[in-house]
């Protein structure tokens, strides 16, 4: 009995279906709640090439729904862990790893190598970027999104069908719809929506069944009911000629943070604080706050001698991005110390006190 016999014996799938899977190339953007169940099944079923993209590390509150991760994996790179586990599951699969966020600078080049994209991200900017890149490259993408007990699924840009912008022409502002973890989700819902996404991807690759194009599936877990909403192509949305200048990719892992303005108040209060500046030595020397200790991000181990006595540590960089990464790593190493990322970093502080 062969590895895939249970599906190759299906009349409407057969060895032809298996062959198409083995030639298929799927990019999965996001290794979280949606990406993991989708990948587990795509890999089990024998999709030939899987692209994996994520930059986050595994945190405790991921484990409630991100089922590929174990307690021992806490603090490790998602990308590395997923690659390890999927390789053990199916050594025939060819994996490509992208230790990056999807950005307007890399999206076209990366997506171009694949037959389709699974959108398993958790933020609007990346969803719009995937949409626009897929429209430009004429690739379908399988959309999945979650809200509490609810999930949405559709296949956009399939054979010149409707796109994400045909449903939602413009990106909602941060104020209007919660992003990322601001809204919770029942742990099992991403399992359902992620496997729905895998199913649609399989249908696109093999040509079996009816692809969920021009239809938005709304799944409600509380009532265990599915509603399909039909929608049409707005041809304007296929007329993109290039990506937007700006999609402001968001990292949705929440890191304890303090606004630059509030941080200014802390500074002004003249109490003793522990402040790490994780920029490079050159940047630090160029301009810095007198309370700051320079611990460059790539030498974070030097932090130990400065923070061991503290119970509260502020972390700063130029824009707030590197300091966020630093806070994540420090949180894992020093679980008893509270770390705060200074939002907007030196840029924002300079703006406040030019």
């Amino acid at each position, binding site marked *: 009995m062969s590895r895939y016999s249970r599906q190759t014996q299906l009349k409407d799938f057969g060895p032809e279906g298996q062959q198409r899977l083995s030639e298929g190339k799927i990019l999965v953007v*996001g290794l*979280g*709640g*949606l*990406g993991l169940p989708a990948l587990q099944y795509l890999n089990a079923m024998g999709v030939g090439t899987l692209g994996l993209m994520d930059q986050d590390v595994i945190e405790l509150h991921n484990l409630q729904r991100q089922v590929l991760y174990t307690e021992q994996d806490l603090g490790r790179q998602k990308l590395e862990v997923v690659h390890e586990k999927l390789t053990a599951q199916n050594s025939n699969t060819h994996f490509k790893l992208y230790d990056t966020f999807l950005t307007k600078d890399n999206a076209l080049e990366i997506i171009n190598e694949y037959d389709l994209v699974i*959108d*398993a*991200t*958790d*933020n*609007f900017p990346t*969803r719009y970027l995937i949409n626009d890149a897929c429209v430009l490259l004429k690739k379908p993408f399988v959309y*999945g*999104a*979650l*809200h*509490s007990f*609810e999930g*949405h699924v559709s296949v956009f840009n399939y054979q010149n069908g409707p796109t994400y912008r*045909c*449903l*939602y*022409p*413009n*990106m*909602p*502002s941060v*104020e*209007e*719809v*919660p*992003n*990322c*973890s601001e*809204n919770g*989700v029942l742990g099992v819902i*991403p399992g359902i929506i992620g496997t729905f996404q895998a199913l649609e991807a399989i249908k696109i690759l093999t040509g079996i069944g009816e692809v969920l194009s021009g239809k*938005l599936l*709304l799944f*409600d877990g*509380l*009532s265990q009911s599915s*509603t*399909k*909403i*039909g*929608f*049409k192509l707005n041809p304007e949305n296929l007329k993109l000629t290039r990506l937007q200048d700006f999609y402001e990719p968001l990292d*949705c892992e929440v890191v304890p943070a303090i606004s630059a303005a509030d941080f200014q108040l802390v500074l002004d209060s003249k109490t003793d604080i522990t402040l790490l500046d994780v920029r490079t030595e050159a940047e630090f020397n160029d301009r810095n706050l007198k309370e700051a200790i320079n611990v460059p991000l790539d030498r974070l181990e030097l932090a130990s001698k400065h923070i061991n006595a503290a119970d509260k540590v502020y972390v700063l960089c130029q824009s707030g991005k590197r300091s966020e990464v630093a806070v994540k790593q420090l949180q894992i190493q020093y679980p008893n110390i509270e770390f705060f990322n200074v939002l907007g970093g030196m840029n924002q502080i300079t703006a406040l006190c030019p």
Partner: protein
Amino acid sequence: MTILLFGITKDIVGAPTLSVPTSSITGKKIPKTVKELRTFLGNTYPELNKLSSLAVAVNNNYAEDDQIINSYDEIALIPPVSGG
């Protein structure tokens, strides 16, 4: 007229569905189009006005603002959702 709520509209209203009167004894204006429905709902639940990209479906199909609605139509409010 019953309206099915999805995503954050469910949280704003605090229930999975919403009833809109189809004949008014209070003299309140009854919505006759999708656009009027949006205004009507925005007056009752001001937070809905914030949603710049709220899709509305009538009888399981995406509807433009000028589409006419009446009492036996099945309506759904579908904001974008972002979680993943």
